[in-house]
């Protein structure tokens, strides 16, 4: 009798019996094989045990995991399981793996631990960012509504207002990048030497200086043109309203 399905489709206990559907069985095999090998590897790492796991897929292929190796553990088991007068008395000695292999495994374990720690840190960052975004949404911030909204569903007025706000931010970004560039120019004699070629080259000189200082910041559009965008938009508004617009 199958257990009654709960309202949510989350994790559920399943009956441990043969799965009827071929596709579902194959998927289950892949997932559980990976889990089995993971548990086997953890056991050998934590307790220093020698482990071998061999499974045959529904299609008849063999998958195996072993530490130190599948052959060594399987051969050891088969030798001991077959009764023979000579081998009965003497127990098979445990042959430890070479130091080199242990060091390699230990290094891989350390890498694995480091990566897992970094992944946990990234997930914490993600939760903090999501929390900040959720807080802005609850505060009813119009800017967050713009950022979240589907552009295709926004009205013309909203789109124009959003465009104006973005143009303003773009101008601020250009000004800020401009300031950073200026600070870089003022640093060191190399900047002074570059000053004359910059003056000669004009606009191109600015790009050249950026390259010379190794500042890989490419903030489109170039400084100054954002002002042109804003001015053009302002001109459009002035044209619509006439010269006597409120101000």
């Amino acid at each position, binding site marked *: 009798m199958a257990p009654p399905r709960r309202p949510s489709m989350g994790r559920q206990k399943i009956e*441990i*019996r043969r799965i009827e559907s071929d596709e579902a069985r194959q998927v289950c095999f892949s997932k*559980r094989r990976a889990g*089995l090998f993971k*548990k086997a*590897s*953890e056991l050998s*790492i*934590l*307790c*220093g*045990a020698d*482990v071998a796991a*061999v*499974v*045959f897929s529904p299609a008849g292929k063999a998958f*195996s*995991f072993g530490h130190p190796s599948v052959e060594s553990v399987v051969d*050891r088991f088969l030798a001991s399981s*077959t009764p023979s007068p000579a081998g009965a008395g003497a*127990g098979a000695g*445990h042959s430890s793996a070479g130091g080199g292999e242990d060091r390699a495994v*230990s290094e*891989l374990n350390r890498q694995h631990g480091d990566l897992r720690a970094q992944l946990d840190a990234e997930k914490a960052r*993600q939760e903090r*960012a999501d929390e900040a975004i959720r807080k*802005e949404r609850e505060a009813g911030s119009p800017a967050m509504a713009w*950022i979240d909204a589907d*552009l295709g569903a926004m*009205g013309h007025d909203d789109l124009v207002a959003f465009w*104006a*706000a*973005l143009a*303003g*931010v*773009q*101008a601020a*970004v250009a*000004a*800020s990048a*401009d300031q950073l560039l*200026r600070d870089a120019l003022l640093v060191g004699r190399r900047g*002074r030497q570059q000053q004359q070629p910059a*003056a000669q*080259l004009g606009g191109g000189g600015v790009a050249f200086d950026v390259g010379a200082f190794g500042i890989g*910041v490419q*903030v489109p559009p170039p400084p*100054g*043109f954002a*002002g*042109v965008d804003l*001015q053009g*938009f*302002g*001109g*459009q*508004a002035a044209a*619509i*309203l006439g010269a006597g*617009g409120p101000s």
Partner: protein
Amino acid sequence: MARKKVTLQWIANDSTRRATFKKRRKGLMKKASELATLCDVDACVVVYGDGESQPEVWPDDVAKAAQVLARFKAMPELDQCKKMMDMEGFLNQRIDKLREQLRKARRENHERETALLLHDAIAGRRPGLAGLSVEEIAGLGWMVENRLNGVKDAIERLQAATAGKGGQDVVLPDPATATTNLQLQLPQVSLLPLVPYSVDAPAEHGHAGVVHEAAAQPQAPSWLMEVAKAGGDLGALVYSGFGGGRGSFGGAGGTSVGVVADMLPHLGNLGAGFGWADPGLSPFPPI
């Protein structure tokens, strides 16, 4: 007491290690049993404890386990080794998987944080974008560019849809729409003192442009020509886009077309003038 993540390394404490070994071995056997039952496949697990000579196996019957392993050994060598893994191979696989997950998580986090920065900038919480690093400003610039392109496309689609309607229906709401636009944009612009802006006295703009032009010209004539050319083109491009919009609002009246034509050169000149003013300041701070 909540479970704590287990450090994946050999347990030094003897009693703890033995207890863990017993528990985990039992769990491993259970997992093998479930796999074999659910997928109707043959499986075998052999575990030798540290220093033990007698292994624990699943299936419990040694003969059955030996039979499964014998089947495995009877396979051709290639088939045996094709899907075989040892500890190093297994760990390398997991490390690669973790690296991929880490890279993906970092990219998503960068996008989220840049979106937050964009929100703060629009809401006026970061005047002049003070305190941001070069990377943050670059990311913010790229996101603004992408959003501007998206908004521009959406506006063009709306205008295309509006153009299909009758002109008479669109004429009446024009003043209200224009007023709403201006009211919506003014608070945003007023929060940006870096950009001088005013909607009254257009002639004054022209005057300011002329002054800047006169001031900048003697220092770098060739540079001035380049900037003027680029600024003029950009201004014309921007104005052309909105000129189309204005046309759709005005309907098919000949007078409206004339007004647009009259305004075009003037606004282009304003754009060029402003373009001169802004970059004119940046390349010569030390002089």
